[in-house]
């Protein structure tokens, strides 16, 4: 059975590019446009991994990671930050919030898939 990955990004084109890469590798994909939208779509669905942007309207990526880590059903779900940010402060904030990896945009699909393969829940 295919594993499900949630993509959280306010850019529809980025969601599509990430989705193409993940679907090509055999994963199922759920998309959300920001942190709040993503929290609404979790709703008990089994998610094996989350790929999230940082700069998003309504609820940014760091706040979203912190919120996910408060949820009993999802606190162990690995989260990869996929962002154009390169500042060390942001990286540190993501790590402290509970993210497991950091991938910079524009990304090479094999790099993202390597991170996903390493972190995805069994």
């Amino acid at each position, binding site marked *: 059975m295919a594993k499900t990955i949630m993509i959280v990004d306010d850019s529809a084109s*980025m969601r599509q590019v990430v989705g193409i890469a993940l679907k090509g590798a055999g994963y199922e994909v759920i998309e959300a446009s920001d942190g709040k939208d993503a929290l609404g779509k979790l709703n008990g669905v089994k998610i094996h991994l989350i790929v999230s942007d940082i700069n998003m309207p309504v609820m940014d990526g760091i706040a979203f990671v912190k919120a996910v880590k408060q949820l009993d059903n999802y606190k162990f779900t690995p989260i990869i930050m996929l962002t*154009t940010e*390169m500042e060390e402060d942001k990286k540190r904030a993501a790590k402290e919030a509970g993210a497991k990896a950091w991938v910079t945009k524009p990304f090479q699909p094999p790099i993202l898939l390597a991170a996903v393969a390493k972190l995805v829940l069994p």
Partner: protein
Amino acid sequence: MRHGQNNIDTQFLYGSLPALPVILIGIIMVWQSGATLYSVVISLLLALCGIGSGLFLWYRHVNQLTQINSRWEQDEIGKIDTVAAYTTELERLLLTISPILSQHVMVSREHTEQEIISLTSRFADMVGELQLIVDSADNTLDGQHYHLDNVITTSRELLQPVLEVLKQAHKADHDVLGELQKLSGHMSGLNAMSTEIHNLTGRINRLALSAANEASLAGGFEVVENDARKLADDFLHIDQRLGSQVNDTIAAVTAALKIAENAAQVDDSTLFQAEANIEQTLSHLSLALAHYRDNAGTLRNNAEQIRGEINNVLVALQFQDRVSQILMQVENNLLNLQKTIEKIQEQGSNRDGNMLRVDEAVEHIEENYKSVSSRPDHAPDSSDELTFF
């Protein structure tokens, strides 16, 4: 008060200056002609004339200054009105144009994003199609059931029994030819036997003639003579029939032998040609399949290369994310400009240039833009691209 004092001083100055030379002339006249009433009166009159002239000049000067000041004030009020009108129009222009520009930026951003999504989708489909081609080529090149070498080998294995059957048929033809040649030999024997029967018939005839002669001389052997003659006739008849049959059979066997020999020669040639043709066909097939395999390999490699290029294009298309962020900053900046002007307008005549806080606004815009534009346009080094925590 100070202004009034200056006015008095100025008035005194303007009134005194023309009087000074006249007073001086009066003093000189008094000094020259003595202090007579006449000279003193003249001097006083001259002094009064000087003072009057000075006052006249002063009042005229003041009047001119007042006129100049009035014109200047009118000019200044006109300029202020012009600047106020310009400022009002400038504010109106900014308030009108900011939402329009913001709308244009937003529409451009949305259209670009939609087109990029469409383009990305098409490229993704192309990658899928190319993957199918690569998989198909892999099956062609490496598949168990369609392995090209197997096709050649299987074809050779299927054609080999056909060749064997043809060879066996050819051998059977040769055996028939051998039997016909033997039969032809037997026909020669029969022919010799027919000759011997013919000779024997002649001898029986001669014996019958001798018997007839003996019977005519001795009498009483007419019966033997008749039997001998009849036997000779029968032999002759059989000999003729046998000879005829043997000749016909020999002719038929000879003809059959000739046909069989020709057929054998044709079969030899045909079999040789068939074997050569089969080998040549298999060789051509093998070459064609080798070409096909090479072409399939080339096609596969090309498809793989194009797929890689399209994947690179998909990575490059991620610039849309950056473009969207920059355009969103532009939208926000335009909206902020609009709000700022509206807020200042609410102050009415109390507004001033400091309310714009231009430097602070520019610094804010630069800071926001820097956070977006300072990111790399290309993929960072792999060491920066992925970090595990």
